[in-house]
């Protein structure tokens, strides 16, 4: 399994545990939305991820969020499943180093 090593500013250290926890609940929400093919919900979560990822130092989350938003717009459920799986794997393997 690939391990992503991410460097985050020390000043954001306090926010990161909460941030990661909220991403896990995003995964839960996305998983449920996928099962219901709730594209509106998928789009909203994708949009939020796109907005916040890079700001916290996770450009990958922004990229995946944008792709998820687009997949929902296109109503491409297979693509959406794939991307959410990718996001889940990323979140599980990411290793954070504070600088």
């Amino acid at each position: 399994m690939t391990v992503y090593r991410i460097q985050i500013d020390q000043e954001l250290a306090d926010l990161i545990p909460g941030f990661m926890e909220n991403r896990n609940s995003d995964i839960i929400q996305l998983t449920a939305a996928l099962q219901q093919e709730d594209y509106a919900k998928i789009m909203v979560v994708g949009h939020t991820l796109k907005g916040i990822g890079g700001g916290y130092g996770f450009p990958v989350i922004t990229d995946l969020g944008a792709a998820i938003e687009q997949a929902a717009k296109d109503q491409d459920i297979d693509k959406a499943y794939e991307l959410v799986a990718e996001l889940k794997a990323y979140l599980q393997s990411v290793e954070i180093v504070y600088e």
Partner: protein
Amino acid sequence: MSILVVDDSFDSRLLVRALLKDQGYSDIILAESAAVALEILRSQPTDGHSKVDLILMDLVMPELDGIEACRMFKQDEALQDIPIIMVTASSEVENLERAFAAGAMDFITKPLKRVELLARVRSVLKLKSEMDQRKSREEELRSLTSLDGLTGIANRRCFDEFLEDAWHQALGNHQPLALIMLDIDFFKMYNDAYGHQAGDECLRKVAKTIQSIVNCPFELAARYGGEEFSVILASSDAQYAAQVGEKARIAVVGLNVPHCRSPILPVVTVSVGVASIVPSLQSTAQELIKAADDALYYAKQNGRNQIRIASEVKG
């Protein structure tokens, strides 16, 4: 000084706060929706100087989105001077055009880059403080002049000075001094029915009419405040003042400015109170104002669109 951050995403709000706090902006207010932001802004002290100096507004939010909220704030007289920076994860040109059209001063794209965020915030805050300074200078200048900005007739400051002069003249010459107070009837309802711009236009018309009634250097027509006007008549008694006041009342009716909400006449009218005094060392100009005001109050109580004369104030 504080910065209001409006964003439906919890993590976005926290991030913006962390980045701003790191740069020494300590007073950061967070709102999860435009409705909450509005509530926060409305609960601020309304002394004309809002505590919030900058709003960072997310564009995509459920219910009221950033652009609608921006447009709404810009139409609110108490809030329109607060600069808004639109924060958006969608960099579509169309959205940016809509944001600027709605009154946003600048925009930042998400994901936020620290350097960009801080640069935009700093430059907009600088602009805001320059605007505030210019505004207070303009206000200062206006108070030094003697004309009312809206109606172009004498302002309250000019009224106070003229009355003081006239008072001392009358005191020295043992002559009477008269004062007329005029108030537009049901003016709030007029504003409600026709809007504030029409209200301003109405004030200008009435002011011009009252001004046209007095044309000698011993008389002064002034905007006393709000929809209240006054005329000072040096060396005049109540009888003459009543004639002038009645002339003004009839002239205002003659303007024929439609007022659909007025329960007394379908046009704009004024109520008039008149008082006079022969000043003495024991009396003050305040007593004359009070007497004219009381007479005006009786005119209102008695059905409006009429004139009432106070019995002569004991000088």
